Every structure is written in C-alpha cells, then in structure tokens.
C-alpha cells in the first residue's frame, strides 16, 4: 500500500494562507450549470508534458481524447488510462444533467496542474485563477467541481 507512505510524506506541505474562505451561494443544483476544473494537468492537444506553469488549458465539453500531462510519478495512472471519468467525470455530469439532478453541464471545462513548487501560487491567485473564473462566468457557470489526481 504505497499510497499510505506517500500521504504520510505529503500530509502537510507549505501552504499559502488564503484567510477565511469566501462562500458564494449556489442556485439549487437542479438549476445550476456545472463545470469541472481539474488539477490533473489534462490536455486536449495530445501533448503529454505540461508547459503552462500555473496557467490553465481549456477542455471543450465533448472532448474525451485528453492526455494526462501531470509531471508526478507518484500516483496511479492506470485508472485514468482505463476511464477518464475517474478524474474528469464529464460523462457523469452529462448523465446527472439528463436526469435533472444538475441544471446543465458547462460548454467548457478547465485544467491546471497541481503539485506546483511555488506554494505561494502568486500567478494563479492574481492572474490565471481570476482569468479562469471570468471564462467560467462568461459561460454561465454557477458551480465548479474541483478534482485532483
């Protein structure tokens, strides 16, 4: 059980103090538009190496031919290879929308890469994160589902 040792090693790492969290009130889930934002470093361009630092890439809603470009070796990769939904549950959101459990699925999702070496994440906090938020708001997104890898 390798994960246990890795979790022990990385249980607490340097973390930027964001202060008290803000809380946006979402509309009822059955009326909400939901987007996935993953930190798995998924890419839509067939490139398996992440070269965007603290930036992000846009994943079109229907896209499933995504490549796992996260740089770490220390997680299971076979699950994603077998079923993208295990990190990017776009098919599950589509089913939830069809069942009326969520209002709709956003036309675009986003991917960042986690495990950034600079724990202050200045570029993400002040530039790419707000840019991503504007993109999602422009798409009418109400709720963001954040997934790691």
């Amino acid at each position: 059980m390798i994960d246990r040792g890795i979790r022990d090693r990385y249980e607490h790492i340097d973390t930027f103090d964001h202060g008290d969290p803000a809380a946006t009130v979402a509309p009822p889930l059955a009326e909400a538009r939901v987007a996935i934002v993953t930190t798995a470093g998924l890419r839509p361009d067939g490139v398996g190496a992440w070269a965007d630092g603290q930036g992000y890439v846009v994943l079109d809603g229907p896209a499933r031919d995504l490549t796992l470009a996260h740089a770490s070796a220390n997680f299971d990769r076979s699950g994603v290879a077998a079923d993208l939904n295990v990190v990017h549950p776009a098919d599950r959101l589509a089913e939830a929308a069809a069942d009326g459990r969520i209002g709709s699925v956003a036309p675009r999702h986003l991917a960042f890469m986690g495990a950034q070496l600079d724990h202050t994440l200045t570029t993400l906090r002040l530039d790419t994160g707000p840019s991503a938020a504007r993109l999602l708001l422009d798409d009418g997104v109400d709720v963001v589902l954040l997934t790691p890898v």
Partner: protein
Amino acid sequence: MSALAHVFERAGLATVGISLVRGQAEDGRAPRLLHVDFPLGRPLGRPSDPDFQHRVLDAAFALLPRADVPVLVDFPESIVDESDGPLACTLPPRSDPSSHPAVDEAAGLRAAYERQRAAAGRTGVARLGGPERIPELVVAFTRIADGAPPEEAGLAPEEVPLGGLDVRAYYEEAALALVDHVPAARQAESWLYRRTEVGRVLVGARDALRAAEHPRRVWSVLVPVGQPGE
C-alpha cells in the same frame, strides 16, 4: 486546488472539491471539500463504475448548500491501492534473442498497446514522439542503466523523466489490454516495476543517475516512490 477554490468563490462561483490528502485539505481551508480515502490518481474511486462515481459526486454536491465554511466531510467508503499485488499479466515470449531482453519485451507488447489505444481513443504516450519512439527510449535507458550519461545514450537530461513516463504509460496501457478487468490501483505499476525487464531497466537507470549525482529532477520520476529500491 484549494487556492482555486478561494479565487473562484471570491469571483462569484460556488465550488465543491474532492480531496485526496486530508492534511492538505485541512491546511488549504477551501470552502467545501469532500475527502475521499481513495488511491492517489483515482479521486472518483472506481474506474468504469458509473454508479460508484455518481455516489461520490452526489456526496460532493450535497455540500453546496453549506454556508458554514470551511466544510470538510469524509466519504464513508475507503479504497486502498494494491501495489503489493502486481497484476497477473502474461508477457510475450522472446522473439528476437539477439536484442536486449527489455527491447524485445517492449516490442512484443506493441500489439496490446495498440488495442488499448484504439479502444480508449487516447494515449498517455505523448511526451517524446509517441509509441514509435519506445524502442529507442528503452535502448537509451539500458545504456543509462549501464552507466552512460544521458547525452551519450541519446537523451538530453530534461528528456529523461519524460521518456520514463512515456515508457511507463506504454506498459500500463498495454497491460489494460492484456487483462479482462480494470486493475486495482498500482497493480499495473507494480507489474511494470517488479515483473518486467523494462521495469528492471528503469530502476537501474534511476540508480545509475542518482549514483552519478545527477539532479533529482532528472531521475526521480523514473520510479514511483515506494517501488523497488526507492
């Protein structure tokens, strides 16, 4: 991930996240997190199990009405990785006794790799030129394992980790085609590093680079933490 939650909430987006490392979730104080005791790499828990994945999503979305943030709730089911049980996966017989066993082995897995690539419609072998370059990469790693500097083996130092991840993806995707089920987490990884010729070569390359005092960023990705010799 917690940083994104803070930024998005301040911008007017409600967020709910899935956490895989509880201490990091506690420290990051994202507004609403569902912690899952699932294998790293599988935040929705079970590949190809839509019912299970929906249960995870439902538990996450149930946190959205909560205003008493930060909220960190544990999903009630656990899944552990099975790295101690390498996948039982038959390797192809030697077809070219004149070549290095690792090179021959990699060539013998090409058909399985291609079946999985066609079935999935995607591949993780996407860093240094795709599957056509796998034989060349395996040769390079055999030379590095024998003590050659990366450049003499045909790889720039920054290409070493990328090549290692490509070789690993090639083997793990081939393994998916050789069994009739989705392996438990890390079973395919343990098969690669504990049962195959290429796994032995990657461990040897990692050891040789480390012994030659190359920077950690060059060799650390070749073998995951917890696999042989780490």
